[in-house]
């Protein structure tokens, strides 16, 4: 009976850390500030923030795909482009309001993702990467043939569609701004919602059983299969979820731009290369990584944007150096020095007794 005290400390499984609890409170404050930002920020800051948030969302979904799912796609521009074009299509052809049409962008991206996965999943590793790129090219070339939305030269959102956008009238009166600025604010708020939902959603996904299975598939596909994880289903799930999010983001980006062309909407540089560098520089396979990465990316762009090609060269060189010498990215460096995890997904065991088997005697 003297061992009974062992039962007083039952073991428990935690994923939270004290840093994560502080981060949680900080995140709430940050969200409030972000939502309130248009009340006191300039229009150009709102535009910059919109850019940062949408790139962050794209990076989170690419990270989910490549960092957690092991699916290195360089064809995500297919989903940005198709989401944007689907939104333009229903606005121009069916006269729908662009804001609900964004959701349709996500749905159409999923519809495209199904045949894409069907072909691309026949390819392994690097060939999967180029396969997704080929499919993105096919979609770009087909879209260039779609004359109703401007063919190869592209088109703009109809003036009355952008003017009568949901809520913009209210925003105009509340903030005392013109229509174009109101549209920026609306897009910005949608981007805040999208970013918070994305990070929250991915964090939730990774903490569920399914998220654990995902990590298992990434680390060792054979071992994962042997404990009953359906690797094929996991791949499909991740690919479709990422396509949905990427399509939504594409539609939102082009709502704010209000002008589209196939070469821009299906640009491998803008929607995949940049996103990939954001994730790599920040730290692949973590939620924090893309956040750090997008900040570094934005700072670099602000510093070097006037130097055009040099900017891209610097970005490429940084990406290569990080991959060679710090493959876990900047967040990996910070995390290994300090042990901080803002979005802990690992399960840690505390308490419990190591010699429980003796108690029965």
């Amino acid at each position, binding site marked *: 009976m003297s061992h009974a005290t062992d039962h007083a400390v039952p073991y428990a499984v935690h994923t939270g850390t004290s840093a994560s609890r502080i981060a949680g409170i900080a995140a709430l404050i940050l969200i409030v500030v972000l939502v309130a930002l248009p009340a006191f920020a300039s229009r150009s800051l709102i535009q910059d923030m919109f850019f940062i948030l949408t790139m962050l969302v794209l990076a989170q979904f690419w990270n989910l795909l490549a960092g957690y799912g092991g699916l290195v796609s360089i064809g995500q521009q297919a989903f940005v482009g198709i989401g944007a074009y689907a939104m333009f299509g229903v606005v121009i052809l069916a006269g729908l309001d662009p804001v609900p049409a964004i959701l349709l962008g996500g749905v159409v991206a999923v519809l495209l993702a199904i045949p894409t996965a069907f*072909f691309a999943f026949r390819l392994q590793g690097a060939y999967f*990467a180029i396969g997704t790129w080929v499919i993105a090219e096919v979609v770009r070339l087909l879209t260039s043939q779609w004359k109703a939305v401007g063919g190869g030269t592209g088109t703009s959102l109809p003036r009355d569609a952008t003017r009568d956008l949901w809520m913009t009238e209210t925003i105009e009166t509340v903030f005392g701004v013109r229509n174009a600025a109101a549209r920026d604010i609306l897009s910005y708020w949608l981007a805040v919602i999208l970013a918070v939902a994305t990070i929250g959603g991915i964090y939730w996904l990774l903490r569920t059983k399914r998220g654990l299975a995902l990590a298992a598939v990434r680390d060792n596909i054979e071992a994962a299969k042997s404990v009953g994880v359906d690797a094929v289903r996991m791949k499909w799930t991740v690919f479709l979820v990422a396509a949905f999010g990427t399509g939504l983001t594409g539609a939102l980006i082009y709502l704010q731009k209000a002008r589209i062309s196939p070469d821009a909407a299906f640009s491998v540089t803008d929607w995949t290369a940049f996103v990939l560098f954001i994730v790599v520089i920040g730290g692949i396979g973590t939620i924090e990584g893309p956040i750090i990465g997008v900040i570094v990316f934005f700072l670099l762009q602000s510093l070097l944007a006037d130097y055009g*090609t040099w900017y891209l060269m610097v970005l490429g060189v940084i*990406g290569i150096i990080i991959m060679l010498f710090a493959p876990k990215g900047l967040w990996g460096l910070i995390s290994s020095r300090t042990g901080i995890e803002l979005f802990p997904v690992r399960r840690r065991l505390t308490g419990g007794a190591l010699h429980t088997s003796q108690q029965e005697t």
Partner: protein
Amino acid sequence: MIWVDTIVQGILLGGLYALFAAGLSLVFGIMRLVNLAHGDLIVMGAYLILVFVSFTGLSPFIAAAIAMPLMFALGYGLQKVMLNRVLGDDILPPLLVTFGLSVVLQNAMLEGFSADSQRLPTGALSTASVELGSINVGVLPLLTFGSAVLVIVVLNQIFYRTELGRAFRATSDDATTASLMGIKPANIFAMATGIALIIVTIAALYLGMRANFDPNIGPARLIYAFEAVIIGGLGSLWGTLLGGIIIGVAQTVGAAINPEWQILAGHVALLIVLLIRPRGLFPRAVD
């Protein structure tokens, strides 16, 4: 008759695509590495030849011969210093590093040569043609196709008739055991990439003589090369030639129906092959 002509043109174009693809196929076969900068290296080779031609007035063929050892050294160094570090079970690092290299090369060329399109001078060669039965065939496309066949024959000879080729195959099978035979896998991989860049130079020569090029066309060449390799079956050089021909024919036939469908038709050919033969037409038995 127009269709026969179209198909012959397509087959000859396939020779160019096989040249694009042969280096990619070689490197993948030996070290399972896909170099996403392959297309940009082809464009870089074309600029290197152009620089020699414009400074010395030499024929592009001689300029290419001078460029070859330089490109070999570049490939050797690139593999030794950079790419060997990222080889391994994780496919992400090599993909990301070569993608980064692609972005760096493209923008370095934009900075150095501007976005203006260029062409290698060919003199009378670009318009010369020969009568083959009832159709007229350009000498340059014929030369391209002949070079592609020659490159593949020579590569196969190296692979199956030389000590280096044995070392290539042994290292590809099992690098650790190969090192017990006195083979340095790092050097073997560097040799392979060096040879791949010699082929890249040949591809660059014909690319530059047959059409305009600018710093941005690399990724599209990578895609054509990739399509040829996949259609042929990973690691099979003759398969790669056939893959190139299929892409070439699909493109010329597509273009004959509607000029805007040229590139699309090539991509669709790949998707069809993936649908019916997921491992390509000549998949390697040992993988």
